[in-house]
């Protein structure tokens, strides 16, 4: 029996749709869905005589993303035409960036087991325009819709630095958080605003010799789950294939496979990487872009703290768990709410609980994001402080938060209105305790007996007091009074 060691190696090609109002080179509005071919103009229809003009916002957003990915931003960048014929590409060339992309040589850090970060190198990131869509319905024809044609895309290429499906997934989630934080993209995989194409192969050591299996590019991945599963699937498929055939990587034997989510397998789409001849050359219709260092620094100053840095900081600075920190930093608005509430004096763990339990539950129920819930940091801090001061019990936070989404009243006012303020006045509570003692002689005896019934009887009395106070008694103080009574 021979020994086989196997490592899976994955690099990613990623397309991120930029969050602009209009297309890359024309004024057509970008909206999801819409009547087929309704958002098309002479430019994105590729009509003769039409000319492209760059969208400033698209350029700024992509530079921000490049900076967030620690890339070197070029001082000179230009546009190239990439030629291939396809019905969803009206000019039969795509405006893209070939030898002088606007950014190169970056990295992204992804969280791996227990608080560590792994650095994945970014080869390059460039801007390009998306194609339209070919729709294959029944019949012997295909339909072409150009609404998507000309949408600004950021293409990010990573080095093959990932070694498991879970790392690929972690990178995808991390990248999504980053671009969403920066407002660069909505980055929904389901809507196709963020598309991942992993390039997967195996490095195998068999009997002391290293082999590399042919690279597979996987397409049709529209969820994080599909991304992870497809990589894992390729891992085992390629190992099996290697053991059966011994096939290794050569020039040109890269294949393309599509993910079949229903069956959980990849299906061969194209056997060999065809010798594409894209005939790249500088687009004469567009001027180059020159970026000054000042402008780049100005862009850099617009960056915010990135989610993973935030996550690590929350663990260190606020002593939150890894999990809690992850929940709070998943969305920028949530993290900002948390930080705002802490700044206004909310105890971090308390604020975290209010947001991550009550808050996110409310958001889920409403089918909205936290940002859309009309909850501000001041309100969250006020609730946290009331819990901390025993003015309300922790369970009341949810009810107050829910009310806050509907009114502009203060936390205190809501708590009073809903009768959630706990009775902490010792003399008032003592009266209640005395009444309960008088009404329940049996239980009092049980407590005093000190026997095994004593603990249960004490709890029974406690419950009776709470009942009399209609749930608004501060349990800590009641318990203190009871202790005093029975010594």
């Amino acid at each position: 029996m021979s020994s086989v060691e196997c490592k899976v190696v994955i690099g990613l090609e990623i397309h991120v749709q930029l969050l602009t109002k209009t297309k890359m080179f024309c004024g057509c509005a970008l909206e999801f869905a819409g009547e087929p071919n309704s958002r098309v103009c002479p430019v994105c229809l590729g009509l003769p005589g039409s000319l492209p003009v760059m969208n400033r916002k698209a350029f700024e957003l992509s530079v921000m993303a490049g900076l967030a990915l620690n890339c070197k931003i070029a001082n000179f960048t230009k546009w190239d035409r990439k030629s291939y014929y396809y019905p969803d590409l009206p000019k039969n060339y795509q405006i893209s960036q070939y030898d002088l992309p606007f950014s190169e040589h970056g990295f992204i850090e992804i969280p791996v087991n227990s608080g560590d970060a792994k650095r994945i190198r970014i080869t390059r990131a460039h801007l390009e325009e998306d194609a339209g869509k070919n729709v294959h319905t029944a019949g012997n024809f295909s339909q072409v819709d150009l609404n998507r044609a000309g949408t600004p895309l950021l293409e990010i290429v990573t080095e093959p630095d990932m070694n498991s499906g879970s790392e690929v997934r972690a990178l995808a989630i991390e990248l999504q958080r980053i671009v969403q934080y920066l407002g660069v993209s909505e980055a929904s995989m389901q809507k196709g605003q963020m598309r991942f194409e992993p390039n997967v192969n195996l490095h195998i050591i068999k009997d002391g010799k290293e082999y590399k299996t042919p690279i597979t590019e996987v397409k049709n991945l529209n969820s994080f789950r599909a991304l992870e599963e497809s990589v894992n699937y390729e891992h085992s498929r390629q190992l099996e294939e290697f053991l059966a055939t011994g096939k290794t990587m050569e020039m040109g034997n890269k294949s393309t496979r599509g993910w079949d989510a229903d069956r959980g397998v990849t299906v061969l789409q194209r056997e060999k990487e065809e010798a594409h001849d894209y005939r790249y050359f500088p687009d004469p219709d567009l001027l180059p872009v020159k970026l000054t260092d000042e402008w780049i620094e100005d862009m850099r100053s617009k960056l915010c703290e990135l989610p993973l840095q935030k996550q690590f900081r929350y663990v260190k600075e606020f002593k939150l768990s890894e999990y809690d920190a992850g929940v709070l930093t998943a969305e920028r608005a949530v993290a900002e709410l948390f930080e705002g509430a802490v700044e206004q004096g909310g105890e971090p763990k308390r604020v975290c609980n209010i947001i991550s339990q009550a808050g996110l539950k409310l958001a889920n129920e409403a089918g909205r994001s936290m940002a859309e819930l009309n909850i501000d940091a001041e309100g969250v801090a006020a609730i946290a402080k009331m819990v901390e001061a025993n003015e309300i019990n922790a369970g009341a936070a949810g009810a107050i938060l829910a009310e806050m989404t509907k009114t502009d009243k203060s936390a205190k006012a809501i708590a009073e209105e809903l009768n959630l303020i706990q009775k902490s006045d010792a003399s008032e509570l003592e009266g209640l305790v005395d009444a309960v003692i008088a009404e329940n002689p049996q239980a009092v005896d049980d407590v005093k007996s000190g026997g095994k019934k004593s603990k249960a009887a004490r709890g029974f009395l406690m419950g009776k007091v709470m009942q009399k106070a209609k749930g608004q008694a501060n349990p800590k103080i009641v318990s203190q009074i009871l202790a005093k009574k029975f010594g």
Partner: protein
Amino acid sequence: MSDELLSLSCRKLTELIRRGEVSSRKAVEAVFSSIEKTEPVVGAYLSTFIDESLERADEIDSKIAAGKKVGKLAGLPIAVKDNMCTTFGATTCGSKILENFHAPYNAAVIERLLAEDAVIVGKLNMDEFAMGSSTENSGLKKTVNPWDVNRVPGGSSGGSAAAVASGMCMAALGSDTGGSIRQPASFCGVVGLKPTYGRVSRYGLVAYGSSLDQIGPLTRDVADAGLMMNVIAGHDDNDSTSVNEKIAPVPDYLENIEKGIEGLTIGVAPQFHAGADVEVLSAIEDAIEVYKGLGAKVVEIDMPHIDYSVAAYYVIATAEASSNLARFDGVHYGHRTAKPEDYIEVYSKSRAEAFGTEVKRRIMLGTYALSSGYYDAYYLKALKVRSLIRSDFTGAFEKCDCIMTPVSPTTAFKIGENIDDPLKMYLSDIYTIGVNLAGIPGISIPCGFDGNDLPVGLQILTPAFTESKLLRIARMFESCTEFHKRRPQKV
């Protein structure tokens, strides 16, 4: 009466129209009666819009009657080369592939003409996709030279030059990628101006070589070219390569046009005279003598890289064209083959059926120059040679105000004479092509006739964005010669 109207300059005619002394309708009717008479022989037009033109003329006339302000081209019957998109009529580029193409938008220059109250009477024949020097490559029509119907009008703006020369419009727009305005202007004895690259918007001009193409006027005299420039020059937000007016302000091209240039220095380069016919050369030399008589000084300049301009041009222009013309594929517009087996055949058969031979040849050449393994040897090399050619001009303009050359080595050649030898045809562009590679302006003005009574054109070149000076220099010659007043009598 109508012939009289048509012999006026654009400036004079629009002035009479504006003053209400002549109606725009009269001018338009005169042009259409000339078209009726001459077009069957010359064949300059691919489409004409008589009803729409008369309607528009009436609108302008009533604006004038009502005392409203009218534009710089008020009421003038003008025609445009059929590679400029118009929402009226078809935009064919002289190609079968666009025979039925109706643009849903107007080119920037069309909008500018209309905004200045011009009447666009029709669209003019051209070499298919502006690829050619004789208009013989039109896929739709044959155009002849009004001076000799057995000869070509030049190209690719052959329809524009022939129509202006034969009085079938008051002025026309053409486009120039390697001489396509200047050479037909020279062959037909009219004025043709190629502005600086970036001076006139290319938005809506069907692209041939995007880094070389430029729209310009063809007119009967130099000042009319200035009038047209006053309308078409300027920045356009839809064309990234149209220059910001803060960088290059647009002057009034008519303002100093009669002033001439004191102490003019003319550059003459031996490389620009090599290979030209004796009669052409002698007309150019005579013209330079006229300038000397006006006080100009002549200096010899060296243009060592001009000899390589045809080589560089035919790589760069065809490379860009191969990409620009990829969109004509039978999917979204234009000709589609009748029964495609699959979608690949939609491309390959539609294109093979509808493109003419010269277009195919240039697409093939350009594709080859960009293809993997050849890019550096051809395309990149050509861009470097282009750099050297531009330096030649930059260096030359340090020694002179303008350069004077023939427009073409010959006068109008016979129909069919060069059609079988593409290389020979390409080489006839030798004097005009460098100008496009360098991006500078150039003008062709009538400067004499050969023994066959065919017009000879003088080419004058000045530095980028100095069209105003270029027009003044051209006008110096015109104001003391009569060549521009001669009209062809043979049609």
